[in-house]
């Protein structure tokens, strides 16, 4: 199979104690990522996609946080590593870029100084050498007149240039894993494309692995080799990117795909929003966590918890759905042909148990 994974996450659980109760932000997530590959993690806000990745960096450690399970980088266990061990890994082996490049750069420090600091946190080099390295990286990510720009402040740059600075800062120590958390969400569409191309090019040149966190399936299609769809702290479907788009198995994934506008569909066709709101992570729904919003819910799904398991005939495609495989395929076929969820339900021969599903969640 694929080469030995760089990053192995196994049954990761992260919970925060809050005044309202324990928030189970990540509840048993497992995945593996090989060097040079890109995993897209997709989900709504609050699905745990950011928390699970921050945990890789040790950035969720706090007094009110409980982390269990295993995160191995090159075989080294990170969950039990000391704060100092993790600090040595952060920005060195694993780097991260964030959603809003303006608020993520320190407004009062010069760009060059911020990069120099990143170099010198891990390398014992002079400021001069570190600055040369910083300028080299700024040039690499396509910042014109990099040496002069390094003397400037973040607010003097455009949004796209700022994100390039963030990328340069992340790559300055040649990390083997880059975690990109919604790297293009705050940017203009044209700039988005440039940044994605840049990430793709840098990855090809350096062979680093990328975890790409996004709510935008379009970005996943562009960059990711594999996709994990997260819902309420768990992975509900995982597959190679092409498979996610051509043969998705989970009703939540169908919902995500249905909420993207498509050119080949007639204009009049409604975009299908997923009904309801993301569930509370303090008191998650029983059974399948998606059941309150699932148009195809059966009575049993409210009690039984689904397991993430391979779908028939494709070991690389995992889904956590209680519907049987044949029904799922028929539902998807109908949806792909443009049917609304209730039409699809009829086409697949499912009885109309569903209306309860659309009922609003009880107030918490």
């Amino acid at each position: 199979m694929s080469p030995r994974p760089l990053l192995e996450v196994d049954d990761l659980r992260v919970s925060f104690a809050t005044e309202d109760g324990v928030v189970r932000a990540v509840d048993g997530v497992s995945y593996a990522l090989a060097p040079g590959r890109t995993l897209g993690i997709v989900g709504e806000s609050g699905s745990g996609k950011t928390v699970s990745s921050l945990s890789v960096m040790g950035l969720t450690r706090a007094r009110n946080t409980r982390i269990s399970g295993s995160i191995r980088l090159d075989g080294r266990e990170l969950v039990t590593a000391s704060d100092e061990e993790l600090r040595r890994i952060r920005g060195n082996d694993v780097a991260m870029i964030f959603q809003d490049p303006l608020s993520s750069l320190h407004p009062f420090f010069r760009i060059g100084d911020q990069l120099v600091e990143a170099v010198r946190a891990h390398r014992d080099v002079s400021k001069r050498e570190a600055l040369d390295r910083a300028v080299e990286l700024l040039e690499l990510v396509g910042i014109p007149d990099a040496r002069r720009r390094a003397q400037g402040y973040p607010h003097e740059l455009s949004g796209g240039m700022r994100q390039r600075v963030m990328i340069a800062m992340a790559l300055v120590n040649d990390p083997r894993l880059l975690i990109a958390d919604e790297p293009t969400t705050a940017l203009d569409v044209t700039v988005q494309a440039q940044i994605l191309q840049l990430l793709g090019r840098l990855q090809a040149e350096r062979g680093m692995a990328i975890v790409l966190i996004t709510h935008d399936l379009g970005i996943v299609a562009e960059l990711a080799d594999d996709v994990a769809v997260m819902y309420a702290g768990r992975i509900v479907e995982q597959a190679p990117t092409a498979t996610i788009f051509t043969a998705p198995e989970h009703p939540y994934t169908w919902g995500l795909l249905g909420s993207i506008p498509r050119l080949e569909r007639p204009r009049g066709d409604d975009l299908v929003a997923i009904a309801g709101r993301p569930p509370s992570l303090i008191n998650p729904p029983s059974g399948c966590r998606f059941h309150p919003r699932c148009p195809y819910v059966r009575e049993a799904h409210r009690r039984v918890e689904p397991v993430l398991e391979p779908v028939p005939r494709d070991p690389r495609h995992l889904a956590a759905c209680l519907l049987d495989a044949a029904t799922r395929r028929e539902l998807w076929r109908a949806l792909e042909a443009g049917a609304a969820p209730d039409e699809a339900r009829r086409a697949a021969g499912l009885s109309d148990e569903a209306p309860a599903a659309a009922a609003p969640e009880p107030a918490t």
Partner: protein
Amino acid sequence: MTRYIVRRSLWVIVLLFAVSFLTFVVFYLFPSADPALLRAGRSPSTERVEAIRQQLGLDRAWPLQFLDYLKSLVLHFDLGYSFHNDVPIKEAIFERLPATISVALGALVVWLVAGIGVGIISATRPGSRLDRLAMGGALVAISAPVYWLGLVSMYLFASDIGVLPILPGQATYVPLTEDPAGWFGSLILPWLVLASAYAAIYARLVRSTMLETLSQDYIRTARAKGLRERRVVMRHGLRGAITPVVTAAGLDLGIVLGGSILVETVFNIPGIGRQAFEAIGQADLPMIQGTVLFGALFIVVANLVVDILYAWLDPRVRY
């Protein structure tokens, strides 16, 4: 930037003019002792009082007195002479300014070190026992009146009356140039007393701005870079949180430079705060004018300096 400074400086002049005018108006419009009568001594003759009145120029209408005052101030930087004992006001103030500056700067150092230190400690462990203790202590320090705190501190520590006589008490001030060690020792209690309320306010200010700063995205970035937590807090955090603290410190320094009447009185330090206080008792208008003008000057200059500092501290600010 230069234009901005010039414009602001012009405003300083306008403001000082307004302040001295108001002082005049208040002095003449509200009941005050008659300076001539006070000066004339015990049971003077009417002629003598009248002569003194003429000598001090008090027989003229007050707007004319104000114009005279302004003229000598603008043309000769002359603040006039004391009604009480004829000393030149300018000299009298300059003589007492060093004591006030000593009290103010020392207290500033104490309250900044204590306030920022406690604020950071609290902000890095919000809700902890240490944090609650510090903020509770701050509340007490803010609530304690300065004169009370001053007296209690002397009852506790002053070498003459203290239970634990380890520090020089009241009226021990000596100029720095004469006896540095004596100067320092005599100011320890005044510094601590004057600084305590400010330190408490600054601790709370630093705690809240620091808490807000530490939740910023750029702090997460600093951690993601692999910086040591100490550097994250002390460099990235403090640098982000310090601007309002510098602003407040500049303004508060301007205020205490104008004389801290209570501390100077309680500890019997010959500064301009006590000078102003005495001048009011003696209906010594030129001295009141002089001390008020200096106080106002310190405050408006502090304001100007703070605004300029602000642009330097925050590269996004442009004037």
